[in-house]
């Protein structure tokens, strides 16, 4: 993890939110102040139940969570959030170094694990990294959504053509395979390139891979 210069404000959009879950009001208040001092938004929750029942922001964010909370343990909460489709990166805090627990937390996908009391910079770095990760994740998710939307506009025949083309078949081969004239295949292929918004075959292949439709040939070969 890279550590930005302390004086530098993090390069996060102002809409990023840190969700703080701790049963200790003092800890909540101090974290709230710390994150706000660097321009982050915060949401405070006293218990996992409050978090699960409360409304969460739409924009990028991360969760800062005490690993030992009354009721549900922090690790259990992590599992519940995943099941609910909430995929904020989680930074765990613990009152004292608890190695087995930190190992479990990291394996379960925690971004970082901090012992109280922590250095503010360590916490901010962890949050920054978590937010970056969330942004990346969100960006990837957004791209995938765009490609799927373009793919949705293709006709069944065009999708078939796209599958074979991205699998590396020549127009002639495709025409023979699906029983069309080479001219017709060419027209379908042109439509595909236009609708998918690509200029080269290489771009089309990348998008097909993102969509998971790049193995059409193997499927076709098998039929």
């Amino acid at each position, binding site marked *: 993890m890279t550590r930005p210069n302390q004086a530098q404000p993090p390069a996060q959009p102002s809409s990023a939110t840190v969700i703080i879950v701790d049963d200790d009001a*003092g800890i909540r208040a101090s974290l709230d102040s710390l994150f706000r001092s660097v321009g982050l938004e915060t949401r405070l929750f006293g218990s996992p139940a409050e978090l699960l029942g409360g409304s969460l922001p739409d924009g990028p964010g991360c969760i800062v969570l005490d690993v030992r909370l009354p009721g549900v343990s922090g690790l259990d909460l992590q599992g519940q959030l995943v099941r609910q489709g909430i995929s904020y990166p989680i930074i765990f805090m613990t*009152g004292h170094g608890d190695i087995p627990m930190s190992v479990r937390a990291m394996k379960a996908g925690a971004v970082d694990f901090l012992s109280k009391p922590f250095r503010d910079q360590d916490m901010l770095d962890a949050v920054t990294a978590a937010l970056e990760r969330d942004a990346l994740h969100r960006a990837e998710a957004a791209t995938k959504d765009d490609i799927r939307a373009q793919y949705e506009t293709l006709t069944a025949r065009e999708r078939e053509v796209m599958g074979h083309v991205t699998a590396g078949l020549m127009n002639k081969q495709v025409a023979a395979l699906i029983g069309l004239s080479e001219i017709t295949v060419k027209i379908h292929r042109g439509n595909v390139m236009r609708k998918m918004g690509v200029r080269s075959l290489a771009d089309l292949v990348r998008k097909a891979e993102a969509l998971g439709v790049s193995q059409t040939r193997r499927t076709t070969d098998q039929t």
Partner: protein
Amino acid sequence: MSRAGLRFWSAVLAFAVFMVDVLTPLEGAVAVLYVVAILLAARTNRRNDIVVAATGCIVLTVVAYLTSHDLQTIASPALRALVSLAAIGITTLLVLQNHAATTRLAAQARLLNLSHDMIFVRDRGGVITFWNKTAEQTYGWSTDEAVGQLADRLLRTSYSERREAIESSLLETGRWEGRVEQRTKAGAVLTVDARWALQHNHLGKPVGVLETHTDVTDRVAAHNALVQSEQRYRRMFDASRIGVVEEDWSGLRAALDALPARGAELRDHIARHPDFVRQARGLARILDVNPALQKMAGATSAAAFIENVDKLLGENDRSFLDALVAFAQGERFHEGETELVRLDGRKVPVLFTITFSPRSDEDHDVLVFVIDITERRQAQDALLAAQAELAHAARVATLGELSASIAHEVNQPLAAIVTSGEAGLRWLRRDIPDLKEVATTIGHVVAQGRRASEIVTRIRTFLKKAPPQQGVLHIGEVIEEATELVARELARDDVALVVETEPDLPPVRGDRIQLQQVLVNLLINAGQAMSGRPGPRTVTLRATLDGDMLGITVQDSGPGIQADDLPRLFDPFFTTKDGGMGMGLAICRSTVEAHGGRLSVASTPGSGATFHLTLPHSQEHALP
């Protein structure tokens, strides 16, 4: 011969004389023989018989004379008749006189018989001639058996002086008094007070001795017993290791009687008048002090003790006040504890018992027993110290079990302080410092700093090694402090703690930390019993008023306690926990009992355990 027999024979004789007088031609005063008939009649000892006999004889004499001689000649037969009549008359007169004397004597003898003393008469030779009823009853010999016997030999009398000396003193003065020992017919030894008087005949010559004896055997035995008893008690008084004071409280009784208050008001009255108590102390007059108490007080003599009594009793009027009230209310005895201030100034704790006489006219006889309890006190103190030491060790062990929770609990405010401080710095270092935010963060720092300090104080208080202190406590506060100590530990095991305290519970008297320790122990046990078990984990602590006791229950929803373990649960070194010392519950129980309460447990395996503790509540008001 019976009285009727005498009368009969007297009449027969008189008739026989009459027949001889009439029928025989004897020339003589045959009628003189009537005298014999009269004497016979006199033997009946009745005046009437004598008179009847005499009258009959005179009539018979006259009839005989008239029958034999008519009234023709008043010659020698008439003279003989007259002589006979004269003889009869004189005899009658003498017999009557004798009868009167006998009657008088008999009356005197009856009087002697009425006496409760043994009275007998002996002649100069020592032969018994009279023996009264009491002598018969006490000595056991009847009059017939006794009369004619030698008195000294019969009674086996033993004299403390020489017998001859007694006799000569008797002759010289006519009297003798002394104590002798005699034996009864049955062989019992009697102690007898003897009073002898010499009897003289009309010529002044001594003829006999009237001995009057009083049986004093019982009186002497009682006296001897009394003397022995006195000696025994004196030995006890002198040799006992218990201090004894003999006091005269009759002056005190008078002072108490003069008070206007009676009964229940008396205590209040006396308590309000310390002057009276001081004055009353002076009225309790010390008669004697035994050596043990003199030694206890460091006094060399009873007199030295009495002289310094005010100094010795110290200023503790309280114990004397209690004794005074007990005395006034007619108690038989009173016990208490106080301190004696020795003449060398050292204080001696003592236990005392005052015994009052059941009768108020014997108030001059009050005994006070005093025992030096220095050693007992020291042993008690040592025991208390050992108990406190053990309780402290148990508290240290308990906190050891809680160390992870405590570390976390202290760490929380510290983490908050660090983060708030750093956040404050960031607000301050902004291009335009946000002072409002800075102020808020400093406020957090201060609050969390206080919080950390409170936690440390709480733990330090709990770990303090101090002798038990009796204070008046609000149980609600004790419960709050105890739950604060274990809250984090219970939360760690996901145990929910429910506290239900009845409002307006009366205060209890006791040691805050010890009671806290009991609750902490019960709560931790409850939490550990449920740790790692499925299902809801709840500890419920309830405090209620239970009659004249305060009841506290700690109930868990754990597995309960095995029936086999229940009776041993409070035994020292009994534990079901791995690495447990087994002292927790033992200490809890002894602590609760030292506070006058009870600690018990009820459990149904599978559905949790309930510890129930009671504490007597105090009448005093809790200090604010």
